[in-house]
């Protein structure tokens, strides 16, 4: 599985309140959430993001609230992958559970700049910066998490486990 797109670059501690402000949490509609994604720190994002684009950030991405609306808003805006130095833990598990691809890679975060064209290979963890002709490698997921992603999220995974007697765990 691959992703390719233009990079939106942000800093450290991007919190869930800026990813999707609470004033918009009176809706659970994915497209409506996407239309407000990042608006408090980057008013241009929601209007200009294109399908496949990639978000790159620093430490502790997604800190704060447990709102699944945050990874949902990013995914529904068309972003194909988030690469960060580290993720806040609830955001990390929410992304896996809803099938938003995320990768931890300090090297990529150091070198990639806003607007770079980047390609990601999820099977190998290789991140290619087409603009700068550079390659970086991210840690792959452990097999248990790969299983959740392969089956399209946590609930299909659990259903599969109960019907297969846990064969895919």
């Amino acid at each position, binding site marked *: 599985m691959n992703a390719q797109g233009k990079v939106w670059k942000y800093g450290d501690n991007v919190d869930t*309140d*800026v990813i999707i*402000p609470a004033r918009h949490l*009176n809706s*659970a509609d994915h497209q409506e959430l996407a239309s407000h994604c990042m608006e408090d720190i980057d008013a241009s994002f929601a209007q200009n993001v294109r399908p496949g684009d990639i978000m790159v950030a620093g430490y502790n991405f997604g800190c704060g609230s447990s709102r*699944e609306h945050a990874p949902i808003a990013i995914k529904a805006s068309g972003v194909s992958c988030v690469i960060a130095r580290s993720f806040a*833990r*609830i955001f990390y598990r929410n992304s896996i559970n809803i099938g938003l691809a995320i990768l931890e890679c300090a090297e990529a975060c150091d070198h990639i700049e806003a607007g770079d064209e980047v390609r990601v290979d999820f099977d190998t963890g290789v991140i290619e910066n087409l603009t700068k002709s550079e390659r970086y490698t991210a840690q792959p997921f452990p097999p248990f998490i790969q299983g959740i992603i392969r089956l399209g999220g946590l609930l299909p995974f659990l259903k599969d486990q109960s019907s297969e007697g846990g064969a895919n765990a």
Partner: protein
Amino acid sequence: MPMTMTQKILAAHAGKDHVQPGELISAQLDMVLGNDITSPVAINEFEKHGFSEVFDQHKISLVMDHFTPNKDIKAATLAKQCREFAAKMGIVNYFDVGDMGIEHALLPEKGLVAPGELIIGADSHTCTYGALGAFSTGVGSTDMAAGMAQGVAWFKVPSAIKFNLTGSLAGWASGKDVILHIIGMIGVDGALYRSMEFSGPGLASLSMDDRLCMANMAIEAGAKNGIFAVDEVTYQYVNGRVNRDYTVYEADPDAAYEKVYDIDLSAIEPTVAFPHLPENTKTVSEISSPVPIDQVVIGSCTNGRLSDLVTAAKVLQGHKVHQNVRAIIIPATQQIYLDALRMGLIETFIESGCVVSTPTCGPCLGGHMGILAKGERAVATTNRNFVGRMGHPESEVYLASPAVAAASALAGCIAAPDGQYCGKGGNAQ
């Protein structure tokens, strides 16, 4: 192999003798929590994947607390969806306007969480119940849906950081000041993926309200959970509330910790977190120039408990809120509201120029009941001061204890009740 408190609780709920950091486990849940914002997303997932009944009607709590009493039609529609789901599934612990409270004040008060239990909640401040010696952690709506359907969740076993508490709090210092001090010291990702375990000889001097406040903000240091050793204070709190058997777990004396911090409680001073991160802390005495404010909020799952209101009333009694400040007091549950009323605290608040609200998360997350305009500043006893958290992206939130918030309401700028205010010594009143 020796284990921490958290590791022991996780092992027991995974049916294992031992677990080690990094291990992925599937654990049985004692309680699954959701609110009016996160539950609808979970209910949609639950129904989409064809589940028709919940794993245990007594082990799910749905609390309508964020946008209630409903602030608009959309919020009312979300609450209605929760109400109908609870009725259809026969969920016993459904709390709506009239008997609800802010979830993390309500569940301990109702005896729905107990030492040694394993709780997940689709709200990041679910880590609050670690104050009782439980493992509790925030998750998302999909985890909540899976928990409601099957009573299990996956976890990566965390390593731990130990906070060895000594001494006892002095003056106006509170649990809020301790946790703000710790977050200022280790940073907003200082405990990322890890447990924060609180123990030591100073523990006995911390009230349950102080512990609930500290465990509540473990997430603001990135922690998976915060947990307190169980002692007499814990037993006094749960006796009469929890009417079922529970197991108390203790960390092994030789358990491994990534780091151990010694915290001398007697050295903790009133502390404020400046915008826009909870780690931007200063003691009030370190504030060098006046910080004028427009609003004060005393409430939330962090500091809306009875002792918080008692402290605020003590500071406000006989004084008037500054003319430039709107002061909003929000008791966290109906019981706390009633107790405050009977103690005369509500009268004190109203006479000093505060407004008193029904329980709601409201302004803490910029929902309703106290939104800030562009350029406005608030001192709040809440837990987050991110960009736009309480309203306009160019507004500011300063996190503080109830004592500092009340003193600031009187002074019109950030102040401590002992006379430190507006960057200089003097009398806040």
